[in-house]
């Protein structure tokens, strides 16, 4: 079902932008109360600057060969591809678990405390499997609609909170220490998984330009900073004590007589997780060398679901899977180390 048509890189970047949006939607890190908005904004910028560096190896491969890293690896090392495929399949299963667990936790805590999370996960994976089967082109086209809806939702939520902004008690002073910086930066670095997605599916895109990546990351940073700004100055100390601050932000917004537009939060977070899981399943089928194969997609959806059940049964599994330090380390290996090794081994000569 994967289309042979190549699509503009802007569209993949748009989809990756929405995928990154989920990181801020599921914002649930324990933050010391002495941290200022300016400090957090710096952490955001640092996290996304590092994410930009994660794009470099696969962007070089794309620029030089017009292939993504996965196609390049299939072409250059057909005998060792099983190991590379296995490594990336494991990485993407981890990524899927990372976001699925985060999403269902948010769902059960904030949206519907009586929901059966296994049913939620299973249905979500079934829908994403269908989308992955239709291919990355269809998913990114769908991303345009999700982006349009998310934009409306974000504008409504932000404009519904303008009246709540209060600068009297909180200033723009800079406060925070090194440990806080590492903690927060690593949290915002989780967006770097989009670099691995790019490394896997960029063969489908044409007219790749590095500035598209820079713009995308710039917009992600802007979205994160605006969200943080509203969470900080509209919710105040109440927001700091709350889990899922963006949910609280949507709950506290009011437009005239209409208040509590958290249905938009539910919709946007669901659409974002749908997009992430669908693209991840696409990447998995791509890494196995069978793009769009329904059997492969269903098999890996099943593996993700079984692992999801295990992680809910055994807390230590869940802790490992949702630890953003481990996740970032794994992302670093998948986005930077492996592609860089390929770049060094195969040098500049005879790429294709």
């Amino acid at each position: 079902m994967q289309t042979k048509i190549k699509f503009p890189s802007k569209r993949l970047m748009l989809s990756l932008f929405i995928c990154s949006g989920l990181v801020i939607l599921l914002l649930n890190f324990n933050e010391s109360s002495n941290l200022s908005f300016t400090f957090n904004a710096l952490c955001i910028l640092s996290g996304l600057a590092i994410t930009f560096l994660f794009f470099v190896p696969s962007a070089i491969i794309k620029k030089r060969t017009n292939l993504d890293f996965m196609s390049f690896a299939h072409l250059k090392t057909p005998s060792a591809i099983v190991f590379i495929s296995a490594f990336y399949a494991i990485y993407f299963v981890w990524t899927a678990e990372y976001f699925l667990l985060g999403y269902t936790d948010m769902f059960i805590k904030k949206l519907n405390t009586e929901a059966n999370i296994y049913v939620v996960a299973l249905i979500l994976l079934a829908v994403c499997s269908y989308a992955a089967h239709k291919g990355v082109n269809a998913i990114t086209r769908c991303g345009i609609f999700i982006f349009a809806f998310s934009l409306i939702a974000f504008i409504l939520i932000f404009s519904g909170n303008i009246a709540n902004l209060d600068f009297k008690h909180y200033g723009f002073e800079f406060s925070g220490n090194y440990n806080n910086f590492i903690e927060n930066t690593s949290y915002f670095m989780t967006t770097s998984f989009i670099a691995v997605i790019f490394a896997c599916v960029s063969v489908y895109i044409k007219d790749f330009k590095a500035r598209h990546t820079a713009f995308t990351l710039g917009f992600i940073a802007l979205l994160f900073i605006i969200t943080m700004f509203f969470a900080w100055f509209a919710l105040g100390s109440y927001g700091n004590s709350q889990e899922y601050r963006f949910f609280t932000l949507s709950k506290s917004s009011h437009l005239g007589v209409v208040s509590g537009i958290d249905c938009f939060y539910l919709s946007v977070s669901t659409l974002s997780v749908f997009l992430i899981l669908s693209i991840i399943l696409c990447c998995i089928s791509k890494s196995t060398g069978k793009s769009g194969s329904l059997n492969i997609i269903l098999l890996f959806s099943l593996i993700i679901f079984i692992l999801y059940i295990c992680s809910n049964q055994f807390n230590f599994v869940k802790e490992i899977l949702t630890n953003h330090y481990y996740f970032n380390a794994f992302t670093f290996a998948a986005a930077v180390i492996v592609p860089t090794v390929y770049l060094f081994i195969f040098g500049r000569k005879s790429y294709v």
Partner: protein
Amino acid sequence: MLIIGDMMYNSLSENIKTLKKLFANSADLTVREMLLNGTSTVNAAIITIEGMCSKEVIALSVINPLLSFDFGVQTSDEIIDEIKRSVLTSSEIVEFETLKEAVTFSTSGFAVLAVDGTDRMLAIGVQGFSFRGVSEPESEVVQRGSREGFTEPLRINMTLIRRRIKSPDLVFETVTVGSNSNTQLMLCYLQKSVSPELLNKIRKRLDECNLNTVLASGYLSEYLEDSNAKSIFSGVGISERPDTVCGKLTEGRVAILVDGTPAVIIVPHLFVEEFQSVDDYSNRPYYATFIRILKYLSFFIAVFLPGIYTAFAQFHPEYFPTGLLIKTSESIAQTPLPVLLEVILITFVYEIMREAGLRIPKPLGHAVSIVGALVIGESAVSAGIISSSTLMVVATAAICSYVTSALYPPIMILRFIFVIIGGIFGLWGIVLTTCIVLINMCSKTSIGVPYMSSLAPFSLRSMRDVFIRADWKSLAKRTIKVQKFPETEDV
């Protein structure tokens, strides 16, 4: 055994016998035998299908000249040539030599002239069957613009298009489908605008049509759809308006006229076209833009409103504004059925009434309306079987679904799906089902052109005729051909 492609015999009696056998002595096969004057008389016959030809035209322009002409000393072949050259006054005379052509011409309303002693025959254009006149199509009513609509005979429909595009660029190409019905189709396109690859794809798909009988345009729609595009939305457009078809032709599309039906197929067909109408281009741009936006909103209301209402009432009543929540909860509390069943019930009853209203004779239609309005609208609410708010929601969605009437089938199906999903899984279920529908629509193509073109893949240039309708000065600057849409596959 008779093979329909066989050559004709030299003997007239053999030919007549063969044709009668082929038609199994059908009552409408008429054979008028005659003797042609000359030094030695020659037998001839005119074979027609009763009701397909004009009897007066046959008598005046075929039989009369034939019987009054002196053929002198000529062989049968020379007689045929003479008839063709200087006897008949008909403007359309075709010579042929096979049984298959004899059958095709006679069943198409031609008079077939056979002369003893030759295997050549003449088909004379004397069509004169009765048909409905050109009238305004009821399904596509416009305020400003032409009142002409297509009718059943192919030739009249061709004329309606030719009258609007008086250019040699306009081409009609004959295709026959249906092994039994031998239905004639006309591929209609502008040769400078259409993509040759697109045209070849359409020809190939029509060639692969294995139907025995083709009685309406809808029979061919499924053959024209892309094989990987299983969807409840159609990638094949239908119109009964010649002005609409002409507009589409200028954009590089292909129209397929089917003999015997006023519905003309237009391919490729895109989602955004469902929201465009001839009136948009006759009205002022600001008003046309307003109507466009209204249509998009109506589509969303028709699809989502009952589902979202069910989800909110059942799972998220806090999302209703306070005043509305009080009214709605009071109304719902007085009814015995859960909201999901109530919405399904009303929607189902409405669909039954709609279907009944379409099928029953017109004089009875008022009775159905009265029963519907009184029983459903008044009695059911006052008896407390259904709530007034639910009734209002379903009625609003029903009215909105008629704004884009061509999309009614998918709207109806999606509405039911969203009501059921909303009632079981709430808003979350609706969001996920929307994802499935969107993915399905985004992966669909119509003869290689992405079905959601202009929106996804996004084309800023095409936006001047999607949500807004730009003024004619800017629209006229450049017509965007359908094969130029982004990500179109080899067309």
